[in-house]
């Protein structure tokens, strides 16, 4: 069976999920079943089918599981958001289309991802600019105390979602060039010049922690950087130094910057009196929602979201805390299945890195996959209190245009790398 036939078959379970999901949500509110809502599913599938045909034409050798897994997650996200609010679901469906369009555009205009290497400093500058934007006057917007969003007239977007792509592209390219020095150099001979990027990225992570006030993104970027550093240099010592530096910095700022300390106190005891109904309300409600789900969950559309007097019991149910809602409605089994779907996508990403033949392709696929996996870990870990809760989105599932569009571009890059790697040796030179 060819790659693309496998992809088409992979879309079958997506079809089933969308159909079953929407049906379940509709059945749970028998009051207003109409044909408009049923057409959501059909429309979604038509989009997927179109994307499949596009991939067939442009990336015939790309990994066949990446797209169906992303579509599965996106479909799942649409069902959950539809279950919360039909208007939000309409927005999200539009963003899904925009995401697919950008996916196609990326594939069309970026014939060979290696051209990115040439523009690495431009891309790095763009990434840093994106990260700084939320702090700029006029366009910067503060969300929950963190500077995460940029307000451009009608569109509010979260630049960190796009910055993560730019930074990973830059790092993959930069580390591909300098890794020989880093690998061969003994410690006395590894000069500041070589450790420079490490310090620079560490500085950037600390900057984000303190000025952007975004622990989640900071963790994500720095983690992605360490993953790349490890793969590029094959040295665990760099990673350990990096982790030590991050913790030293984070601890220092936790002592000196109040909002970081507060986040950590909430994390350690969200149920403390005076915390549980104020600063700890989000994480406490997140955990109560999960406790409500049990092993099998309440069923799609059956959990308590709306309060009788209006308002929501679970804040930010459509973005930051959507995982808690999923655990509530589908239980431990549903939540674990979702994490498994993410892990499969991550596995295909790393597989792409494994089969890629040149250093840049390997590092790019690794970096993109790692930052994607870290994002899942940071938000799900926050919602389940493994780490302090910070506001990043659950890729492909959370409500939000920036998130879904940026992740589709990430997917496009991965599939471009995969396509060129799997086409065979004539287009690339062996690394070893």
């Amino acid at each position, binding site marked *: 069976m060819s790659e693309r036939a496998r992809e088409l078959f992979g879309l079958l379970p997506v079809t089933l999920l969308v159909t079953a999901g929407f049906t379940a949500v509709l059945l749970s509110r028998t009051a207003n079943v109409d044909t408009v809502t049923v057409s959501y599913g059909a429309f979604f599938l038509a989009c997927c089918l179109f994307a499949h045909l596009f991939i067939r034409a442009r990336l015939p050798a790309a990994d066949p599981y990446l797209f169906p897994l992303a579509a599965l997650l996106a479909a799942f996200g649409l069902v959950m958001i539809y279950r919360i609010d039909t208007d939000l679901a309409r927005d999200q469906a539009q963003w899904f289309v925009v995401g697919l369009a950008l996916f196609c555009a990326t594939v069309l205009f970026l014939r060979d991802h290696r051209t990115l290497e040439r523009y690495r400093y431009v891309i790095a500058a763009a990434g840093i600019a994106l990260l700084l934007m939320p702090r700029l006057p006029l366009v910067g917007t503060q969300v929950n105390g963190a500077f995460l969003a940029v307000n451009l007239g009608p569109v509010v977007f979260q630049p960190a979602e796009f910055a993560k792509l730019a930074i990973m592209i830059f790092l993959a390219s930069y580390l591909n060039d300098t890794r020989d020095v880093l690998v061969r150099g003994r410690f006395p001979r590894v000069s500041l010049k070589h450790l420079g990027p490490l310090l620079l990225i560490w500085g950037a992570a600390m900057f984000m922690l303190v000025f952007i006030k975004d622990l989640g993104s900071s963790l994500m970027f720095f983690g992605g950087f360490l993953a790349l550093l490890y793969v590029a240099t094959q040295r665990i010592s760099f990673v350990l130094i990096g982790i030590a530096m991050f913790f030293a910095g984070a601890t220092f700022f936790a002592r000196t910057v109040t909002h970081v300390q507060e986040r950590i106190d909430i994390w350690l005891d969200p149920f403390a009196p005076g915390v*549980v109904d104020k600063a700890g309300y989000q994480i406490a409600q997140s955990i109560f*929602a*999960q406790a409500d789900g049990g092993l099998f969950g309440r069923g799609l559309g059956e959990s*308590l979201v709306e309060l009788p007097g209006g308002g929501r019991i679970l804040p930010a149910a459509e973005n930051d805390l959507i995982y808690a809602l999923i655990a509530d409605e589908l239980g431990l089994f549903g939540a674990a299945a979702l994490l498994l779907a993410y892990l499969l996508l991550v596995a295909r990403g790393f597989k792409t890195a494994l089969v890629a033949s040149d250093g840049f392709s390997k590092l790019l696929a*690794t970096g993109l996959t790692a930052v994607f996996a870290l994002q899942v870990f940071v938000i799900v870990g926050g919602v389940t*209190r493994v780490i302090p809760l910070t506001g990043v989105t659950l890729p492909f599932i959370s409500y939000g245009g920036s998130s879904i569009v940026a992740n589709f571009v990430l997917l496009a890059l991965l599939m471009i790398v995969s396509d060129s790697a799997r086409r065979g040796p004539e287009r690339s030179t062996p690394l070893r």
Partner: protein
Amino acid sequence: MNRQIVHLFALFTLLFGLLVAFTSRWTVLEAESLEQNSANRRTLLAEQRVPRGMILARDGTRLATSERIGAGESTRFQRAYPAGSLFSHPIGYSFVQRGQAGLEKSKNDDLTGDRNEFTSIVDQLSGGSQQGDDLVTTLDPKAQRTAVQGLGGRKGAVVAIEPETGRVRVMVSVPQFDPNDVPERYGQLNSDVANAPLLNRATQGRYPPGSTMKVVTAAAAIDSGRFKPDSVLDGGSPREIGGAPLENFGGQDYGSITLTEALTNSVNTVWGQVGERLGKATMYEYMQRFGFNREPPLDYPAEQVTPSGVFARGRLLDEDAGVDIGRVAIGQERLQVAPLQMAMVAATIANDGTLMEPRLADRVVARDGRLRERFEPARATEVLKPQTARQVGQMMANVVKEGSGTAAALEGIPVAGKTGTAEVDGRTSNQAWFVAFAPVERPRMAIAVTVERTQGFGGTVAAPIAKRVLQDLL
């Protein structure tokens, strides 16, 4: 590089495993304690979304129903009580803002359909959503109404029990309250100390039992083998009991008199002597068997029942405390009883000496009419030998035939009973009592009636109420 990529994937697999572990922790391992967390309003809010089952009288009259408010996802249900105040105490109330009381509380799991994890999964798979079951009670609206009318606004309580099964057919406490008013007027109802409308006098009231206690003393006397109904004692007045002179009602001197005659005429000095001769151990043994000194086994919230016994400063005295047992035997000392306890005493005599557990709930029925659970009659205690019970019953029959309880006599149906009048408020008013069962042969109903702070007596105030309620129930 490839080795490192594989390591990296292994690391992420581990991290994702950690996420699954923490999700398990919240969804399953610690779910129960999280649901109990006081900051978690989900359980209460969720219960509001489930239509609670109805509570029905034994004849099917609706006593509590669920009314739908709102539509769609904001649908919730609120309790309505079509019978108003008539069943306020046995049924109680259930409101998210005010909590629960009465059967609404003790049978909450049945009424919300909250059975166990397995059945709710089956409900989910079969497409049914959780739904409360209906509760059919043992209560009788007609007799209940008669009891309320009989009390006529005077504070007091009436409890009627089927002796053979323990089914509570009437439970009235006056003043009543309208459970429909609880959400708005709870503060007012709760702070009305003078009338205490939320107090269920039938199960929580503590009153001096007066001479109705002599039924317990008579049962102990005969069942222990120490006395017979025709044993003769000195009914002179006054007599020294517990180191102080005790008088008969009106100071009357009855001379030598049998126990039967002493019960018929409620002769204090005779029963005081009997109590002293039996001694504290025997008296307490029989009180214990009748259910004193512990909470009655009623299917009712534990905080809404009181044990009966000797109290000092609001606390139940244990067996080792010093009491004047001669005066306990005639219902004085610091003896305080709940009307339900006295109905249980009458029911025990009526049921050949066997005390059945009193019941307010008869069965649980699903919405589709299927029987979910029937609460079968259960024996609580073998209190007396059957022969003793019949002898005491005959003595009580004499009370109604020719003694202080003639006001309870029913035409054509022989009634057995005992009056009681305890002086309260420094002898300025009386606690009037009447306990009874009927018919004397093959009894079908036992009853206890009490009226607070009346100028009348057990025989004149309480007995006529018992008569009217018994008439309805027989």
